[in-house]
């Protein structure tokens, strides 16, 4: 278990650093790439928890698709590829206050509630189980999400279309 713990802290450190850079860097493209780091770290944490399927989905969907979308968005809005000016506005201190407040509250609540609960990993969750669950218990939400995606797709096309 120690190895896992160590791995967790390493990944966590990377993720924290990446996240901070995402919100602080002055280069847009870098920000997107730092985000990739955070997402990848997240996928790694999932694997640590034995949740493989979602980890791979994370890698494929997020890193493979979402980040690409981001980059396209950056290009299409003709954002400067290099750091030119500050990318943060004058709301830094309020933002920090809100962030600290939120994070602090969450942390307090978590510590308070689950102070020493342990995660006992027995065996990884297999994809079959997930399939069973999705197509039995959560069929309707699944379908709804499918429709939602379709709607988002059409909506995005309609909105972004030039006419």
């Amino acid at each position, binding site marked *: 278990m120690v190895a896992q713990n160590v791995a967790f802290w390493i990944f966590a450190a990377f993720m924290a650093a990446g996240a901070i850079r995402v919100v602080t860097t002055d280069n847009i493209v870098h920000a997107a790439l730092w985000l990739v780091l955070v997402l990848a770290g997240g996928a790694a944490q999932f694997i640590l928890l034995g949740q493989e399927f979602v980890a791979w989905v994370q890698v494929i969907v997020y890193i493979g698709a979402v980040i690409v979308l981001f980059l396209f968005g950056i290009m299409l809005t003709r954002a400067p590829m290099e750091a030119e000016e500050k990318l943060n*506005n004058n*709301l830094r201190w*309020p*933002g920090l*206050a*809100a962030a600290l*407040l*939120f994070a*602090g*509250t*969450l942390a*307090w*609540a978590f510590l*308070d509630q689950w102070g020493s609960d342990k995660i006992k990993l027995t065996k990884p969750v297999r994809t079959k189980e997930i399939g069973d669950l999705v197509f039995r218990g959560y069929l309707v939400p699944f379908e709804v999400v499918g429709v939602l995606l379709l709607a988002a797709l059409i909506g995005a096309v309609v909105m972004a279309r030039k006419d």
Partner: protein
Amino acid sequence: MLMNHFWFLDHAWLIPLIPAISYAVILLFGKRYGERAAWIGLASIGSAWVLALGTVVQWISHVNDSEGAEARGVVQSIGGMVRNIRLAAESKLHVEPIIHSTTWFQNNGFKLNVGIQIDGLAVMMLFVVTTISLLVHFYSTEYLKGDRRFNHYYAALSLFSASMLFLVVASSTLQLLAGWELVGLCSFMLIGHWWEEKPNSNAALKAFLTTRTGDIGLLTGVIMTFFVVQKYATMAGGKGTGSFDIMKVNEAAIGLGEHGGSKSLLFWCAAALLLAIMGKSGQFPLHTWLPDAMAGPTPVSALIHAATMVVAGVYLGARVYPIFYQGFHIAGGTINPMAAIGGATVIIGAGLAFVQNDIKKVLAYSTISQLGYMVMALGVGAWTAAIFHLFTHAFFKANLFLGAGSVSHSGANHSFDMKHDMGGLRKYMPKTFITFMIGTAALIGIPFTAGFFSKDEILAVAGENNFTFFKYLGLVGAVMTACYMTRCVYLTFFGEYRGGHADAHGAGHDVGHDVGHDTHAYVSDDHATPIHDDHAAHAAHDLHDAHDDHGHHGPHESNFPILAPLFFLSFMSIASGYLLSPMLKIEKFALWVEPHFGDDKHFNVFEPGVFKAIDPILAVAAGVVGMLLAYAFYWKKAYGENITERNGALRAGKNFLVNKYYLDVLYTDIIVGGVKGPIAQAAYWVNQNVIDNVLRYTGKGAAGAAQFVYKYIDQKGVDGVYNGSASGAGALGGLARKLQTGRVQLYAFTVLFGLGAIALLLVIFN
């Protein structure tokens, strides 16, 4: 025996019902029958009159039966000892009223009973009201011929009679209230009969509003009667439900008074009801509407003044008399509000009658004065005398009013102005003259006319009950009455005819209107109301042009429908007095009319006075003095035409001789003139300027206050608060507007920070 021994008494509810139906019929179908609609009204009031006569006959025989010949026989023979013996035989003397009632509605255990309560008082009133009303109906067929709203007039007349009769037979105070208000409504309709002219509708409004002011008293008073009963029932250990039944009210009032409980409730109840009487019966200071009410057609004035509207107040006083008797502690013999108001009204009304040039206004002020006698009589404990005076006054005052109507109707100008349009009329209309003289005699109290007996009775009993002050006040009133009535008769029937002929018609009309224009919405001056029964003018474009010609030649005698009621009323003006006279040892009226006020045996105020020779002598002397004064001043013009204009020291010596050492001046100028001039003028001035102004300025003040309240408090103040709060909200919005920077991220910050704060709170307090 006619049908049932009690048939008429049991079915007295038919008497108000028949005219009420007639009202509806005339209103709905009147147009179809044109002027024949009058006959519907006549037929209905005629049958009501027959029914009323039936009740009179049956009631008298009922009283005589239950009295038993023996008690009354003894009383009759002993005469002077009447009082003591009657007290002894008292228990037999009350004849219980006949009550039929039904529960109208029920509300939380309280039942409102309505029905009829027939006793001597009610029977007497039924007779008076139906009689006068019948005569007025008949009289009006001629008098209002060709009027443009002939049908409405008859409909209103029917309703008027119906409501008054309803009031008379009422068995509960609430019914009294209903009848009372309906009477007020009808007087409104009739006074304002010619509503096209503003002064007429003003007069109608004034009458309604003034009596309505009195009705504050009636409303609260009737409510208090309810609680008087409740209090008494609770005191007697009963279940303590209130009631409006007049019998119960009287019983309770006597009981509470006897047991010394709830004096203040009784007092306030009496005070409230006295206010109602003041409004309705034209008592000082609420009398100002009565002269204005002359704006209505003259037969209506007769009806209002003799038998319906104003008498309702006195009737109320007599109906729930125990309330006043106990509430004002009348037995004590001290000055009480009721006697004081009545006494003041006697003098004030009579004083004002001096300075009127309008014959109807003289009569109107005289009515006020006579009503003052009645209320004063009630106030001094002379119940029987008050009612007796009501009874006789109804006939002779109706006689006088209808006589005045005859004079105007058959005179040249349809005017009531004595100074301009009358004089010497006795030659032109001798029959009217005679009847008018009989009425005047009765009003003055010439011996052996009806007024003599009734007025005398009031004064005698007032003296007996230790109200000496009011006795002499009444005598002063009698002097004044004699004086102004002599003047009135002189101006109307003696001297030279001053009226013009047809061509003067328009001029007379204008005089009235010139004065009439400065009126305003509520309160009009007395003189501002042109008193013209100029229905002929209204009718000029109407169907009956042919009839109108009588206005175009000189004065002449009226025809049958007008004279017949006058003859009958003249007869009654004398005959009605012979029902009660201690002097002649007649006590029938007292015996027949006295009501039964509950079970208490010790309450008896219905005694006729004990005859003392001094009383009639004083009264006659008063009358003679009054007449002589007027005779000297007006008739003989002992002091010339325009005495008041003369002055100056230089001519004094010559005048001293010419004027017979100024003895006449002393008599006429200083005494009569003083009374006639400054005092009456002052009274009139007070009436016109103070009381009327109080009313006027109260009206104006209310309007002003209303304007103020509306403009400043409502529109600016109260509304301002809301408008202010609205703009306050606007200002807040302006502040909030500042927050709407349009910076999405600032919004996001606000939302997220707020959310975080709430979450933190939840965490902390959980």
